[in-house]
């Protein structure tokens, strides 16, 4: 069976659900607008204000249509609660190196940032990296950082 999932305007939708959602949105919003306009023209003194209020109610109708669609159609997203795997962090450092070149030295950092790194358990990661860099200068071995099964975590350059 062919997949009915499409990427539209930045996220995934189901084709059939999209058609229904658009129909619901159109009917509810326009319905609210026309009914409001019909009723208000009699009630409100100025025709201009009646039209402005009708638009306001039409926009409330848009939101109501969206709410109905949200209740009927579940998001096509898979959301995982997930802490970045510590094993990947070394990989991230490699990607940072590819992106920016030299990563800099911990000794350049103000004390507040050092404290912040310690609090996040990131201090050792950067310290290990620096030690590996120093070792590399001493012996022309490839860096000890190369993690196997390098899962690419994209830096998301856009």
């Amino acid at each position: 069976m062919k997949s009915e999932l499409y990427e539209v305007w930045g996220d995934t939708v189901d084709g059939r659900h999209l058609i229904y959602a658009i129909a619901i949105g159109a009917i509810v919003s326009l319905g609210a607008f026309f009914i409001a306009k019909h009723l208000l023209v009699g009630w409100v003194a100025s025709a201009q204000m009646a039209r402005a209020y009708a638009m306001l109610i039409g926009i409330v109708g848009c939101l109501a249509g969206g709410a109905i669609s949200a209740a009927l159609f579940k998001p096509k997203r898979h959301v995982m609660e997930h802490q970045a795997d510590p094993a990947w962090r070394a990989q991230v450092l490699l990607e940072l190196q590819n992106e920016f070149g030299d990563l800099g030295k911990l000794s350049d950092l103000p004390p507040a940032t050092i404290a912040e790194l310690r609090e996040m358990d990131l201090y050792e990661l950067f310290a290990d990296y620096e030690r590996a860099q120093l070792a590399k200068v001493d012996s022309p071995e490839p860096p000890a950082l190369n993690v196997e099964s390098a899962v690419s975590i994209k830096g998301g350059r856009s």
Partner: protein
Amino acid sequence: MMAPLLDQLLIALGMGILGAVIFAGIGLISGSDETTTLAPLTLLVVLLGVPAPGILTFFLAGAVAKHMTHAVPTALLGIPGDTMATPLMREANFLRNLGVPHIALRKMISGAVIAALIAVPMAVLFAVMLSPFGDMIKRAAPWVFLAAAIAIAWFSKGRLAAVLTLIPFVMVIIGLQTMTGQYGVKLSVSYFLGIAIGPLIAALFSLLAPAERDKMRRQDVRTFSLSPDVKSWGGFFPNPLKVLDRKQSMWTAVTAVISSATFVFSPVAMTVIMGEMVGSRVKHVYHRLTTVITARNGVTESTYIAEALIPLIAFGLPLSPVAAGPAAPLFNAPPRFSVDAATGQVNNLHSLLSTWEFLGYGMLAVVIAILIAYPFTMNYAHRAASYVSRKISHEAVIATFVGLILVIGIWEGGLLGLLVIITVGLLGGFLSRFLGFNIGVQFMGYYTAVLTVPAIVAMLGA
């Protein structure tokens, strides 16, 4: 004397709270573009007859709140919260992959607080410095708009292509105006909305074409990894200056001042450039990531505030990408607000509020937005991101916007209004996708058609 002032203050306060609450919510929805959301709702507020201070606080508090909560999807889900969040993605993703997305989030919104507080007085100051030239610029308005349109087109992604595309685009708008004019229908909001929502209209049409549909087909749903909740600060309202270190506060302040002055440039471009400037001055990579993301999110606030306030205070003409786009209803919202290029007559917030009022109500709006969006984002970011990504389907978001197109189009010009939105949106959406003729350039194209072309015709006729 005191009673009317108190009334005005209360209205300004109420509208500011309303704007901040609505747009703090909208900011959580990824991809909710500023222009598509700020422009129509601000227009509504103008047309409902809300007094001038209320309009200003609604818009500013909304923009400031949105650029704080847009940090939630950007940092926690790895998807840009809106257009202004796209330049933050690289740093946000690196910090997420390092396992510290909450740091990215806290730094971003703390930068936003500092920059927003600095930007209002700076924008007023620059506007006062520019206002002696106001009359000159008003008289030359048609030509200033033409020059601005060409400049903004040149600095867009399309470069020369965008500059040349201005000509056919302006022709189409003049053609549509002439056509609807024959039926006695004069439209403006429909053009704004068509341009702002163009990418959605283009995407929906693409979905109907078999070849394009196959390209858009996906086998699986997208996977988002939501980072777990880490709260590592006490109290409900953390001090932004403690979240940031000295250097980060300093760079945020510096970039906020610079980006407040450069109000004619694209806000996205300023965000990128300011980030590069800061990044090249910070050595260690972790410090660089956090400092750049702080300064960049600060710039998303300061450019928006300055680009709306400076042209509004100094000229009353929408002479910046933000003023021409999301802030357009503050300048031009017929029948209430209007800009007449031929006579230089301006009737909008520029003529309704004094410079001191702009400063006072501007600061009020920023403070309201901070009091609402900052503690909300600090304390509930994780729950909000989880709710939005699990409960609000993209179909529902699209349905809401389709409803908006229908209601606004039919409200302004009946069937003709709707047809104009679809025509302009489809054309603009594809021009933006294929030629880099972006939304800001399209807005300037619209102003060229409305303001410059009549002046050219008059000149040639004389």
